[in-house]
């Protein structure tokens, strides 16, 4: 008796063998395969290129906007109507909030300074070591307040120097004396003006308006009752929102660079969608090309498929054969497209950096980003598209009758 076997214990064609047959078939029609792969590469490459540009630009903008602010920080201010002030009690309560690691104290008032007989308005910040640690101050000359041993030190930004015509060479002001004047808010119903001669210890490159920084103790010793703002550092980005809620429950107002970042991300998410739309047109053409190739391949090989079924192939093996061909086209096309897009992006980035350097931009920048999620996401997307495109030809391959196929001429 003939041994009967069920579908489960019936061995099917080994994947390696199917891959070999699929590969040989694609290789036989070299030009068609090349054109199809090129179509996919261009389609997927343009999607990748535009997305990589979108994400790169998003990072660049976020970096410029967030700049020296750590996104693990929260800015705390009193609300306009609040009776809660940023005094020692408030600072103590905030320091007790879990996840809060560090607190930077800030006073700031409009004031003015006089240097080399030039006088200009400026924002005068009174900051402590905590603030300096939580904020990246881009020091270009000298030293920061937390690192200096000088008595009555002051750090100013480049914009303040530019306001008095000394922006070209910041090093010449280090060690020089500067006169500060700050009209303070009423203290115990009395108006006070802070006036002091100080020594410049450092120049930073941040902010577009004139800003000068002195130790917060200067204002505190004068009896200024409450801080203007606090900068609170937390454990991680994930704990920002929780810590903010707890600080707000005290009756204070909070903001965070995360808010700005979210806004930027929102805008760029829309931009990316538009870019995907543009790239999608190329992608659509590539998909149609792939469908066309697989369908023609099916029609040309009807007899071959009939032969294979007559020789004992399961119809599901014929379906798998077409799936392998689609996967091959998708993977090779997607890989080539991504490699091409990365190369093109690299080239454009070099040219843009050279152009920017020619216009005085000192820091290099990256216009294109290549996060691994994007690379694998785009490849995965193309594989899924390939599997969807092959559904119809594969189903038709599965239904081919060997007798009809072998009778065809």
């Amino acid at each position: 008796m003939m041994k009967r076997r069920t579908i489960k214990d019936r061995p099917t064609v080994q994947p390696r063998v199917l891959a070999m047959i699929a590969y040989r078939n694609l290789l036989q029609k070299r030009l068609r395969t090349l054109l199809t792969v090129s179509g996919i590469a261009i389609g997927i490459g343009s999607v990748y290129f535009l997305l990589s540009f979108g994400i790169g630009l998003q990072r660049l903008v976020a970096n410029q906007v967030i700049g020296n602010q750590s996104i693990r920080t929260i800015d705390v201010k009193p609300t306009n109507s609040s009776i809660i002030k940023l005094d020692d009690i408030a600072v103590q309560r905030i320091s007790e909030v879990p996840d809060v690691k560090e607190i930077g104290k800030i006073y700031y008032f409009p004031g003015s300074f006089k240097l080399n007989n030039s006088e200009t308005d400026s924002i005068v910040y009174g900051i402590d070591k905590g603030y300096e640690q939580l904020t990246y101050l881009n020091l270009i000359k000298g030293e920061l307040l937390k690192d200096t041993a000088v008595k009555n030190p002051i750090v100013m930004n480049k914009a303040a120097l530019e306001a008095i015509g000394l922006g070209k060479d910041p090093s010449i002001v280090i060690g020089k004396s500067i006169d500060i004047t700050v009209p303070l808010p009423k203290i115990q119903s009395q108006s006070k003006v802070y006036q002091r001669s100080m020594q410049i210890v450092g120049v930073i490159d941040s902010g577009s308006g004139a800003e000068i920084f002195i130790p917060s103790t200067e204002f505190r010793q004068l009896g200024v009752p409450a801080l203007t703002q606090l900068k609170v550092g937390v454990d991680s980005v994930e704990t920002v929102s929780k810590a903010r809620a707890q600080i707000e429950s005290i009756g204070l107002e909070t903001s965070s660079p995360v808010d700005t970042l979210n806004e930027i991300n929102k805008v760029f998410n829309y931009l990316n969608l538009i870019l995907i739309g543009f790239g999608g047109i190329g992608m659509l053409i590539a998909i149609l090309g792939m469908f066309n190739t697989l369908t023609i391949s099916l029609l040309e090989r009807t007899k071959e498929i009939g032969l294979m079924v007559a020789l004992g192939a399961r119809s599901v093996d014929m379906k798998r054969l077409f799936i392998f061909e689609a996967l091959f086209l998708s993977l090779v096309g997607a890989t080539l497209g991504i490699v091409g897009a990365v190369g093109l992006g690299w080239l454009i980035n070099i040219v843009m950096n050279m152009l920017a350097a020619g216009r005085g931009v000192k820091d290099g920048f990256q216009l294109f980003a290549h996060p691994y999620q994007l690379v694998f996401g785009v490849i995965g997307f193309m594989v899924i598209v390939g599997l969807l495109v092959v559904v119809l030809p594969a189903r038709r391959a599965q239904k081919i009758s060997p007798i009809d196929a072998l009778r065809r001429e």
Partner: protein
Amino acid sequence: MPTKPMLFTAKNLALSFTTGDQEVQAVRSCNVTVPEHAITVIFGASGSGKSSLLNVVSGLQKPTSGSLLYRGVDVYEQSLNELAYFRAHELGIVYQTNYWVKSLTVLDNVAMPLYFQGQSQAEAHRRAHEALSAVNMGQFATKYPALLSGGEQQRVAVARAIVADPPVIIADEPTGSLDSTNGDAIIALLQKLRDDHGKTIVLVTHNMEYLHIANHLLEVQDGTVTQIEEAQIPRTVKKMLGDAQTRITKLMEEHTT
């Protein structure tokens, strides 16, 4: 002479097609057998229904009525996958026209039945080399089949039919597109497979020259299958040849007058 065991048994087997409004009886109800380890020749004129009968025997065409038993099991009671298994393991097929997967070499084309059994490429290649050597075509392994001559292609087709060592070889007009030398060589190969390897051969032909190798004869005329036992074959062949000779003589007389 001992009776050979029956490998195939057709019971009231019939096959009909509908073309347009007409129903064509390709195979009329028949009860025939195919003995094991023997050459069964299905003989008939073109369009008589022999290829239709062969398609049924090959597990490719379900009969309209009746049944086909293989070693006692109803072939068409099986699922499509079981039928594929049956074709891959029990049958080796040689066609009149050479069908190939054009993108594959001779070696891979010969190895195909083994691939469909789930064997690895290395093992399939090893056995395909053996099969090619058995038909003296070993040196053509890396060539593409479409580039070979008709005779060479048919030898490769025989290698493909025997590569999985199936018990049954089905040959559908294997000499149809060959000259007599190459045709005789293929017939000799089939005889060798029966004599040396105990294969069961089902040979479809319309060429009377090869009737003498039959152990069993199925004559097909307009869909009617007549089974002729081995002892009766010489007489039947003699009668057929006589009839053919009479027809030829008559035609020649008509031509000369």
